[in-house]
C-alpha cells in the first residue's frame, strides 16, 4: 500500500450543504415521490450530482414504497405477532445463541416458513402463494418472483441473518431489516416487486 494522502474527511460544503437541502426538500410529500421515482434525475437537478441508477437507489425506492404501503405494514405487524405467539423458542429466547439453536431445527424452520406463507396470502395472488409453499429455504434472492421482498424476509433475514447472529430477534421486521433485504435485490427482481398502492 502506498503512503497515505491528505485526510479522508469528506466534510466540505459539497456534502454539508446538500445534506441540509436534502432534509429540507424531503419534508414535502410531492418531492419524496419525485425523488424515489427517479433519484438520479433529482440528484442531478437539485444537487448537481451525477448518479447512475445504482442498486442502492433502487433499494431506497423499494423501501419507500413498502413503508408507505398499508397492506405491507399490516402484514409485517401480523407476521411479527405470529412469531411472538407461535414461536416461543424464538420470541422467548434469552439470547441470540438460543435463537440460532432454535432455527437449526428443520421443523422450526419449516413451521416458520409455513406461517410466513400463510401470512402473505392476503398480499399476494393465490398462484404466487402456492409457488412459495414449495420453497423452504435457499438463496431466494435469485428467484424472479413478485414475492421476492417478502420471501427474503423470512429466508434471508429471519432464518439466515438471525441464525448468523446479525439480526436481533426482537426486531426481525424493522426499517433497518427492510433496508438490509432491499439492498440485495437485483434490478429485475426490484421491477417485479409491487405494493398495493394503499
Amino acid at each position, binding site marked *: *500500500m502506498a503512503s*497515505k*494522502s491528505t485526510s479522508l474527511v469528506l466534510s466540505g460544503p459539497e456534502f454539508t450543504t446538500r445534506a441540509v437541502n436534502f432534509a429540507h426538500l424531503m419534508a414535502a410529500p410531492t418531492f419524496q415521490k419525485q425523488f424515489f421515482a427517479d433519484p438520479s434525475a433529482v*440528484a442531478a437537478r437539485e444537487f448537481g450530482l451525477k*448518479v447512475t441508477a445504482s442498486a*442502492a437507489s433502487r433499494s431506497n425506492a423499494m423501501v419507500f414504497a413498502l413503508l408507505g404501503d398499508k397492506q405491507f405494514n399490516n402484514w409485517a405487524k401480523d407476521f411479527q405477532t405470529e412469531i411472538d405467539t407461535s414461536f416461543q423458542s424464538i420470541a422467548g429466547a434469552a*439470547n441470540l445463541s438460543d435463537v440460532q439453536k432454535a432455527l437449526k431445527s428443520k421443523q422450526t424452520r419449516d413451521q416458520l416458513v409455513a406461517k410466513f406463507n400463510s401470512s402473505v396470502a392476503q398480499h399476494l395472488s393465490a398462484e404466487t402463494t402456492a409457488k412459495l409453499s414449495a420453497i423452504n429455504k435457499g438463496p431466494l434472492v435469485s428467484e424472479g418472483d413478485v414475492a421476492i421482498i417478502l420471501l427474503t424476509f423470512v429466508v434471508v433475514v429471519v432464518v439466515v441473518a438471525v441464525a448468523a447472529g446479525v439480526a436481533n430477534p426482537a426486531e426481525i421486521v424493522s426499517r*433497518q431489516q*427492510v433496508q438490509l433485504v432491499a439492498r440485495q435485490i437485483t434490478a429485475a427482481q426490484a421491477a417485479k416487486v409491487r405494493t398495493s398502492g394503499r
Partner: protein
Amino acid sequence: MEILDPIPEARVLSLLLTLQCTAECMHCGTNSSPRVKSRLTEATAARLIDEAAQADYHVIAFTGGEPLLYGQSLFDLVRRAARYGLATRVVSNAYWARTDDSAARIVGALAAAGLKEINFSTGDQHARFVPMSNVIRAARASLDHKLKVAVMIETVKERSITRETFLNDPLFVEVFDGAEREMIYFCESPWMPLNPNQYLDYPDNMAVTADNIEQCTGCDSVINTTTVLADGRVMACCGLGTQQIPELQLGNVDDGSVTEMRSRAENDFLKRWIRCEGPERILQWAATKDTAIAWEGLYAHRCQACVRLYSDEAVRSVIREHYEEKIVDVLAAEWLTHTYQPVQPVEA
C-alpha cells in the same frame, strides 16, 4: 411504537477511563497494558456525563483498559450517570473476581451505584492473565444483583476458549442452573490484529466474502458512539484500532462539548456512509472501481475492514474520486431509517 416506525438515533458515550490493564493481550484493540498509566480525570469524565445527559445520550459505557483500576471514582461516575436515568455499562476482564467474596463485593458496589449491565472480556489471550473462573464468579455475582451480563469471547480458528468451554466448565455448571445460563449473553467476536496487512485464521464463513456480505449491516458504532480515551482524545466510534486512524479522531475533550464532537463526526459524509452501509460494503464498492483492491476472505472483524478502508491509498483514492455518487443514496437511507412518516389513508 409500531415495528416499522422510524428508528431513533442511538447515542452512546464510551469513556476509556484508563488504558492501564492487568492484562497485556496480543493485538489489544486499545493498546492497553499494565505499563500504560494514562487516565482521564474524574472531573473531566463527570463533565462529559453531564453533557451527554443534556444531549439525549442513552448509554454511558465505562471501559478501558480495565475500568476497575480507576478505583472509587468509577463507582462515583456510575452513580452520577444513573442519577440522570442513563443506562450504564462496565466492560471488565474480571481480574478482581478472584474469590466469591471479592466478586460479590465489587459487583454489589457497582449495582448499588446504579449499574445496569456488565460485559466481561475473555478468550485465549485474556485467559493468559485472568482465568475463566474469575469471569464465572463475576457473572454469578452479577446475576445475583440482577445486572445484564454479556461475555465477549475472542474468536480465531484455533482457540481453546469458546462458549461451549464455558457451558461445560465444572464451575459454570455448578453455580448456574439452566434458566440462569440462558440469562448470560455470550458473544464470540473475531479477534483482530491492528495491522491491516496481517490476517488471522477464523472459523469458516466468519470472514466476509461476496457470499455472505448480504449479512453485513451498517456500523452501529461510528457517530452513534462518542468515545473518549484516557488521554483526552475524542473518537468518532468505539471501534478497535481507532487510535491509528487520524480521521476517526475528533479532537480533545478540551476542544468542545460532547455535542460539538458528535456534530464534527456527523458532518463527515464518509462516517455517515460507514454508519449506513458498513466498511465491508464500501470495500466491495471500491473494488468495483479498482479491481486490484482485494477484500474477500480477509476480514472477520469489521473494525479491521475499516482500518483497511482508511489506510489503503487505493481505497482512499476511489472513495475520494467517486464518493459523490453515493451521497443521495446515503442521505435517502438515513431519512428512511430515522425520519419518514408515511401518510396512511383513513379506513373507509
